């Protein structure tokens, strides 16, 4: 278990770092898009490369931040029935889900998206739009995403088994505590009942 947990920690560290860094592409996408909108209106100029850059940036964000989102347990679940189960069963469902839902999905996606990317890369596929970006980097993102997600699935599986064996404390909080955390964070930035009254 020790080696596996070390592996899991390494995967977590990688995906955590990737997520944190790449999330900034959101801001880049906003600035690119705002600039596009302004130049389109004011100077009547627009370029397909810049327009395509918006969605490529956003794709990089949601694809490559999704392993980190999984790590943070922020992919939404329907927990209405689940929350009534005993903890051990819920952990069991997670193990089952990692093994039979997530990992097979990521494997199928890796197997199909690699040729999808290579076919595009081999012909250096260009955008359908005049002056657009090359298509293969965006297509490569799909493979990278599911590869990282596969790794994260392995890590989550290791951690869940370790939790069930009592080797480590549960890294997930409950949804309630997440809501309260957000409220607390938010409260800290508010000045309570400013003045008068």
């Amino acid at each position, binding site marked *: 278990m020790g080696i596996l947990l070390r592996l899991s920690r390494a995967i977590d560290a990688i995906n955590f770092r990737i997520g944190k860094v790449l999330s900034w592409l*959101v801001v880049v996408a906003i600035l690119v*898009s705002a600039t596009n909108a302004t130049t389109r209106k004011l100077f009547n100029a627009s370029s397909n490369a810049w327009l395509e850059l918006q*969605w490529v940036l956003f794709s990089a964000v949601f694809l490559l931040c999704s392993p980190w989102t999984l790590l943070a347990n922020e992919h939404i679940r329907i927990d209405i029935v689940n929350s009534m189960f005993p903890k051990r069963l819920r952990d069991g469902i997670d193990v089952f889900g990692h093994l039979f839902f997530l990992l097979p999905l990521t494997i*199928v996606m890796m197997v199909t998206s690699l040729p*999808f990317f290579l076919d595009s890369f081999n012909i250096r596929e260009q955008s359908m739009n005049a002056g657009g970006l090359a298509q293969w980097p965006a297509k490569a993102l799909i493979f990278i995403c599911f590869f990282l997600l596969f790794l994260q699935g392995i890590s989550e599986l290791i951690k869940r088994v370790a939790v069930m064996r009592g080797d480590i404390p549960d890294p997930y909080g409950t949804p309630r505590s997440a809501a309260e955390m957000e409220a607390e964070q938010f409260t800290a930035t508010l000045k309570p009942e400013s003045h*008068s*009254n």
Partner: protein
Amino acid sequence: MLAILAHNMAPIMFAALVIFLLLGYPVAFSLAANGLIFAVIGIELDLFRPDFLQALPNRVYGVMSNDTLLAIPFFTFMGLILERSGMAEDLLDTIGQLFGTIRGGLAYAVVFVGALLAATTGVVAASVISMGLISLPIMLRYGYDRRLASGVIAASGTLAQIIPPSLVLIVMADQLGRSVGDMYEGAFIPGLALAALYAVYVFLVTIFNPKSAPGLPLESVGYRDESGKRGLLSLLVLTIVSGVFGWLVMRDSGTHGADFVVLTMFFGMVFAFAVALVNWATDRAFGFRFLSKLAQQVTFVMVPPLFLIFLVLGTIFIGLATPTEGGAMGATGALVLALIKRRLTWDLTRQATEATAKLSAFVVFILIGARVFSLTFYGVDGHRWVEGMLTSLPGGQIGFLIFVNAFIFVLAFFLDFFELAFIVIPLLGPAAEHLGIDLIWFGVMLGVNMQTSFMHPPFGFALFYLRSVAPRESYLDRLTGKRMEPVTTGQIYWGAIPFVIIQLIGVALVIMFPIMVTHYKDTGPQIDPSKVKIEIEQPDLPPIDFGQPPNFK
């Protein structure tokens, strides 16, 4: 045995989906896994060709290259920055002072500010939390009924779901294959109507039970002039003069409809802001004021949200910007506003960025999961199965609408709107289309209905957020020093129920008066309806999308 399986793949697959989802594993992966497992079964049964799954990467690529989805991170980021920019506090404080002395005044202020925040930040959690922290203690201090106070706060917070620019409407437009701009225009009036209904409810309560929503005593109201007067007349005059100014500017411009309203309001707002600015300057320089304190303060706090509303919604409504561009401008505007108010810190930006990235990841992954699911589900003719069931309901259009609304209302107890929008709506859309129902009208109606998913006790998220900031234990009021009772969870739940009913009245109104929504057809850049038809109807093509136009998944 195998033949039975092969013939009933769609119902079996649907039943399996329900079980998979209820297991409580992340929705995105359960959906996708369901699609994969049944694709493998289908290949084994020779329903699909062995290379069936090769289509998957292309489906993901379709989601990626969909420009409209960009509006999701843009509006999310804008909301997250705004919620910390201090705008909500300023508004609640000032508008509370403005309405405070009349009976139910604080409750009206909450509804009013809730609607304004909905049109700017669009984040339910933020609205509910800030109102719960700022307005709730004041309402309690002056003896508001706890159920009324908590209900009106939770409900007003959920206005963010229906008043544009809401994420629900983007997703809904996407899933129904309609333009987001049309969906925004269609949802605007029903959203305002709901706010009005909340206010009517407060009014009725003050009539029948005046004690539950008393007005504030005059001494406790701020922004009074030295003479002790409130200066309401000055505000009224300023409002009227600004409106007339806007009208004069626009009178000969040849615009009409929504364009006229948007631009008139814009010029009126600029005028009022200029006047208030001059007033402020002369007051500073010579101690001379021609506006009351209150008028100046109200103008100053109203301008940032109104300007943002113009920047985002106004430009979308008059056809100047696409929703994606509007979102980008709004996000930039929010950054600038926070910078001006000196609230923009590195930490805030980082938190907003990271939260936006994670939200985008989970939302778009549900969409990806849904597309993997639909690849198989449409492959086994699941869409025809559902459509057949829905269109054979008795009562035609009305029967269908009543059934669907009842269905969504029940589901909203268990599912939140992302799940409803990505899984349920795509199945309903084609049937609605088949019955000749306008899909924007349909979407807005369901949007109003799905708002209840935030208010249903005990799982409604708005109630959840309110609970987390409402006092759990008795406390000493900081102003009066009196011991105050806590707000119980039961009070929060009971308080929400009248508003859930109001929501249903809202749905009924939208059904009875489609014009509240369908006026979108008369304004803005028009698309030829016959063209839209052609785009939508592609029932027999292999399932590239959810059987809907390719522009947007």
